[in-house]
């Protein structure tokens, strides 16, 4: 009955009235647009969705949606989302943030979230840079990227390969999209939310201010060549030869979802009585 009487929610119903702090042209705009469209497609009640993030330009995103949000601390979006999902399994839980947030300071949680496979959709807006702190190299920056005075000779460390790590850590849903293709991104978000378990969407997400070359680079080089496979070996092989710009769903293979286990109920008095001695 509700479905009939309640007006259908549109993408803009999932947008808040808060004006983003982002620079004009920042890839994050495309991400919030894709998320709100995906939520509209799924017609999820706003109060049943919780959107969690860390710290960074991209991590400001929950406030721009009209669902429940949590803008936490740097690098800890995934544990916060995990606790929420396990305690409140009926909620749809989204997590999002930057590549610094997710792969550097939050790298350990990223790996363990892939392993744990709680039912969370995680969107990483990768711009190869720390936007919020004004342009330092992130773990996905190329070793010879000399755009930051903090690492004048480049970071000198091979770039982090998030999709390979996700596969190795046991992620059950791995996809990549690009900010310049919001339709594809929306499809992926819809699929990720429907996917039971941890779903990673890696977004090529330009920082127009500190990586001005990215906008054209992503547009020119992104190629939507991945069709989902459930074969982990094949997914690895694809990820290994990936030039960093392939988009699409790389790997989808549901596996047991992490959740609380119920047990035979007991009253507090019964539990306390276990302390009785003699």
């Amino acid at each position, binding site marked *: 009955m509700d479905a009939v009487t309640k007006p259908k929610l549109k993408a803009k119903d999932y947008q808040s009235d*808060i004006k983003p702090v982002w620079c004009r042209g920042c890839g994050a705009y495309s991400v919030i647009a894709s998320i709100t469209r995906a939520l509209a497609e799924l017609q999820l009640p706003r109060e049943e969705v919780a959107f969690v993030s860390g710290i960074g330009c991209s991590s400001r995103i929950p406030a721009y949606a009209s669902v429940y949000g949590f803008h936490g601390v740097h690098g800890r979006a995934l*544990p916060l989302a995990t*606790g929420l999902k396990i*305690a*409140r399994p009926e909620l749809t839980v989204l997590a999002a943030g930057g590549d610094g947030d997710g792969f550097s300071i939050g790298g350990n949680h990223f790996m363990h979230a892939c392993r744990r496979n709680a039912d969370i959709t995680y969107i990483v807006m990768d711009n190869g840079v720390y936007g919020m702190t004004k342009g330092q190299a992130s773990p996905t920056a190329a070793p010879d990227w000399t755009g930051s005075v903090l690492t004048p000779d480049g970071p000198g460390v091979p770039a982090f390969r998030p999709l390979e790590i996700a596969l190795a850590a046991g992620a059950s849903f791995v996809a990549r999209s690009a900010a310049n293709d919001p339709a594809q991104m929306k499809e992926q978000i819809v699929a990720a939310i429907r996917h039971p378990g941890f779903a990673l969407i890696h977004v090529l997400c330009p920082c127009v201010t500190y990586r001005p070359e990215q906008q054209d680079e992503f547009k020119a080089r992104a190629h939507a060549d991945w069709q989902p496979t459930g074969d982990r070996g094949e997914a690895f092989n694809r990820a290994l030869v990936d030039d960093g710009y392939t988009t699409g769903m790389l790997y989808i293979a549901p596996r047991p979802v992490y959740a609380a286990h119920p047990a035979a109920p007991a009253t507090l008095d019964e539990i306390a009585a276990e302390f009785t001695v003699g």
Partner: protein
Amino acid sequence: MDHHSLSIALCGSGGAGVMTAGQMLLDAAATAGAYGLMSKALGPQIRGGEAAALLRLASRPVDSPDDVFDVLLAVDWNNIERFAAELPLQRHSLLIADPAAGVIPPAILKAEPRVVEVPLGALATACGGRVNMVALGLLATLAGLPVEAVEAVIGIELADKGEAAVASSRAAVLAGATAAATIEGIERLPLPATINEGARRWALSGNEASGLGALRAGVRFVAAYPITPATEILEWLAPRLPRVGGSLVQAEDELASINMIIGAAYGGVPSLTATSGPGLALMTEAIGLAVAAEIPLVICNVMRGGPSTGIPTKSEQADLDIALHGLHGDAPHLVTAAAGIADCAFTTQWTVQLAEALQVPGIVLSDQASGQARAIVDALPDPGLRARRQTAEADAEGYMRYVPTADGISPMAIPGTPGGEYTADGLEHAPRGTPSTQAAHHREQLDKRRHKLEQFDYGEDWALCEGDEWADTAVITFGSLTGAAREAVARLNAAGVPVRLLSLRLLAPAQPAAFAAALFGVERALVVEQNHDGQFLRYLRSTCPLPKRTVGHHRPGPVAIRPDEIVKAVMTLIALPQSTLVEEV
């Protein structure tokens, strides 16, 4: 000497089973209607190595070790001298040694105890039992426990080991009991003639008590990373939370565990984690988030020797500074301290209730001495304190998550509530929750978060005020030292020295007015704590009106601060000639 208790150290190397025997002795005492406690002293080895079960059996509840051990029984001497400092003996102490175990270490003989040789190993071999069961029978008999009490415990403890094991253990216990009959000079405990079945005793550790308090308060989500000496809280909760509809997650680290409970608590579920110093240090950033975003949660911090990895298996009260002051920014939060083993239950339960009511994180301090010691206590009734959070109604018009209110507490919208959608934020925010850098908003929210803690009525439970209420001398302490301080005050009062005890349960926010009232008429105070620097004294000096003549008595672990040490320190403070009192005490 306390004539209602008997302190026993049961020593032996890892495989000898002294911990099992100690635990069974404690349970047998409970079965016979006595009280007591037991802690463990272990060497640094992961398994095996030197070990001692440290017991105090008593005819009334005890919450502290006594000054010295009345009996030390060693089944062997494997490196025991390494913790000789934790095994204080005196001249009348009885030392029971197996002559076959070799030379008694000089460190143990220093106090000149009375040595009695018993061929423990040979007795065990003769009856086909184990040496630890011989020790059990011997010690139980010395304590005056009826042999039936020991047999009842054997029946329960060894039920799944088969009849042969039960029979050989019985034989070994009887051999020990027979050996004890020839030992004189140990006063048997006065035990009740009949045991009231309705008032059965409980045996529990402080860590288990913390778990119970959490469950009773309504905690239904726990995330944590194992750490000594806090892990037993988690191990106790893990199988029991699901039975009341909750769950426990073993997180990848403490950064994860604290953020997981923030997420669960934001979702409306009362949540808790347990850790020790190193873990608390990792959590501090996120505790600040919980302060700013007004998320209720509780961290049980079971203190061990610090800093850094310190002495993980030994007790200290040295995390007070980080618990009180370890957060960045102006971050008012709750800090409480459990006043002993059983009080871990009450204090944890109360702290959960306070945290939920105030939408603030709370740190409960206990320590290894309380957490890992096991006590026989009267059953702990449920004080009925429950987590109750002020929540927002569905579709409340113009809902603002952080709106300033008279008491500073704003209704919290729980995900799932239509119309309450907001973004919780560690960024400073306007009342709606939207980020703000405005001076007025910052001031308003800082005021609100401070005000809600300061206006709250914490009632009578903020401290324990005991002893002579007219006394002009006070002992002020917190946490696991409460038991030793209580005993010291009782001894002084019995000797005609007026002293009162103030043990603080609520450390932050400080309660200067209640503190002043509790110390009305007090002219001198001794502040007792177990850490090197006197952190508690420093804190009290900066927050509470202390009597002019206030002296600190503080020293680090792992050697416990015992009642006699406090008695002496009080007497020094009063500047009475010590000798006049020693006889009377």
